């Protein structure tokens, strides 16, 4: 479990993380979603005791990270997979980590096999592709069999197989009762992986909700419909309280009414439908709705906010 209270980080005059409070619960995958520079990485670094908060506090499994003995046994983290001295072999890189926390060296081989790097255990990590480095970083996070796992943008550089593998891994780790905290700016990925979402923009948490709930609350579901008597249908639907727009392909985009209601209206007016398709509200839509005013990088307006990625 990760408990963050009134966490603030200032760099000079700019505020990277602004009075952030949240709890990351065990047993589910919590996604940390936000645009670049929103404060995700800074928050994660503060959780891990790497950056000192300007104010506020963070507790990991009930204690401050810097107070943990053998921290790799309770928290595993992947921040930047390429941040590694290239001259060591993958196995040796994991071995110093194991030695520093009193972890049995046999565990090194186990986690390398688990992430599919068993065959390149003796290869210099400097020669690894980004995807292989990500796998090594995940192996390092799993090394101490920790209760809490923190991953910053773990799917960067992975091929589709790797992404599927990570998604299943995150879910199985959470199913085992662990706390899984995962940041990403890839919303479609989060929609498929995270059970719970923390949305951050400009250093503030702007949503803390279940993924389904977040989508339902923040994005409107719409129905795409085409009819022979298009204009009549549009009028009838508007009368029933729907909001109707023309879609580029000549159909109608209806919000506020579901397929059942639209079908009913069409039947009552003897209108022939030849297409009726509900489009599920996406996380993208919800995210853009929510962050429209909070994003640093709107077209035509560049601000000098620090890169937090």
């Amino acid at each position, binding site marked *: 479990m990760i408990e963050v209270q009134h966490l603030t980080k200032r760099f000079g005059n700019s505020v990277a993380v602004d009075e952030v409070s949240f709890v990351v619960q065990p047993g589910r995958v919590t996604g940390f979603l936000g645009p670049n520079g929103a404060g995700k990485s800074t928050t994660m670094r503060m959780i891990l005791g790497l950056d000192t908060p300007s104010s506020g506090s963070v507790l990991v499994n009930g204690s401050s990270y810097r107070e943990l*003995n053998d*921290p790799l046994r309770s928290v595993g983290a992947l921040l930047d997979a390429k941040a590694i001295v290239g001259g060591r072999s993958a196995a040796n890189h994991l071995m110093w*980590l194991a*030695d*520093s926390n009193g972890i049995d060296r046999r565990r090194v081989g186990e986690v390398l096999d688990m992430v599919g790097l068993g065959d390149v255990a003796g290869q210099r990590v400097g020669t690894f592709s980004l995807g292989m480095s990500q796998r090594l970083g995940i192996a390092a996070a799993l090394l101490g069999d920790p209760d809490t796992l923190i991953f910053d943008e773990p799917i960067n550089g992975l091929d589709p197989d790797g992404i599927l593998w990570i998604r299943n891994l995150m879910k199985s780790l959470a199913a085992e009762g662990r706390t899984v905290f995962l940041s990403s700016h890839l919303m479609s990925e989060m929609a498929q992986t995270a059970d719970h979402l923390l949305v951050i923009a400009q250093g503030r948490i702007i949503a803390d909700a279940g993924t389904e709930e977040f989508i339902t609350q923040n994005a409107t579901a719409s129905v795409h419909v085409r009819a022979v008597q298009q204009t009549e249908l549009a009028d009838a639907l508007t009368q029933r309280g729907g909001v109707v727009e023309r879609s580029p392909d000549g159909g109608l985009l209806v919000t506020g009414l579901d397929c059942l209601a639209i079908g009913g209206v069409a039947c009552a007016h003897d209108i022939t439908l030849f297409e009726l398709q509900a489009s599920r509200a996406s996380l993208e839509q919800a995210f853009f709705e929510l962050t429209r005013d909070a994003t640093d990088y709107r077209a035509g307006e560049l601000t000098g906010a620090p890169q937090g990625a």
Partner: protein
Amino acid sequence: MSTTTHTTTLRARPATTINRHLKGEWTKLRTLPSTWRTAALAGALAIGFTAAVDLAQLTRASMNAQQLQGFDATSASLFGVIIAATLLGSLAVRTVTAEYSTGMIRSTFTAMPGRRMVLGAKAATVAAFVFPIALLVDIAGFALGQHIFAGDHLQVALSHPGVPRAILFGAVAASLVAIIGVGLGALIRHTAGAATTLTLIIVGGVTLGQLLPAGLRQYLPGTAIQAAITVHRSTGLLTPNTAIAVLGAYAAIVLAAALIRVAHRDA
């Protein structure tokens, strides 16, 4: 994942933590191939230079009576340790700066959040690694040098008073330079900057130090290393004991500054 047991980590004793930090840092140091390449290079260059210089310059024919009087066959065969100390010192610098420049320092500090203890473990590990190599350089240099000097009957025996101390102090001086290197690495964080600073402190002190009055010059780190490996007392050099104490003070000051700094900066 093999198990799902959520055990409460027992509060480890500080001694256990220190041991694990030392073990982790030692594994880091020995698993980097460049560590061994640097050690081999330092040994080869130090012994090679000693042999070449001793062969080329230090012959009875080229020295006048006064020079012969002041000739210290021990320090003349041990000066290679200064070369070894400089190269191994830059290795010590890299144990810190390579982690900062790649960002791996963040893995180190998440695995071992006690930053002062990490830096202390690094300094201890590198100093312990450097010591036997420098001692080997000293012993080989001494044997080789005395063999060369024997041709001119200028050799000293290992049993001669002050000789074992000079050999030992050469290795101690190299270890202290390694500690200075770790400290500079943590303060400067860039390999080139920290390694250049270290080289200037040692070699530059010997050359640019000529501009300083002798009374000050003898306290320069490079001059102090020279003094540590002498047997004869010579003007402008500290006694070996004082020289080692001065080097120890430099190492303590640099490391203390680094320890203060490392805990307060974001990684």
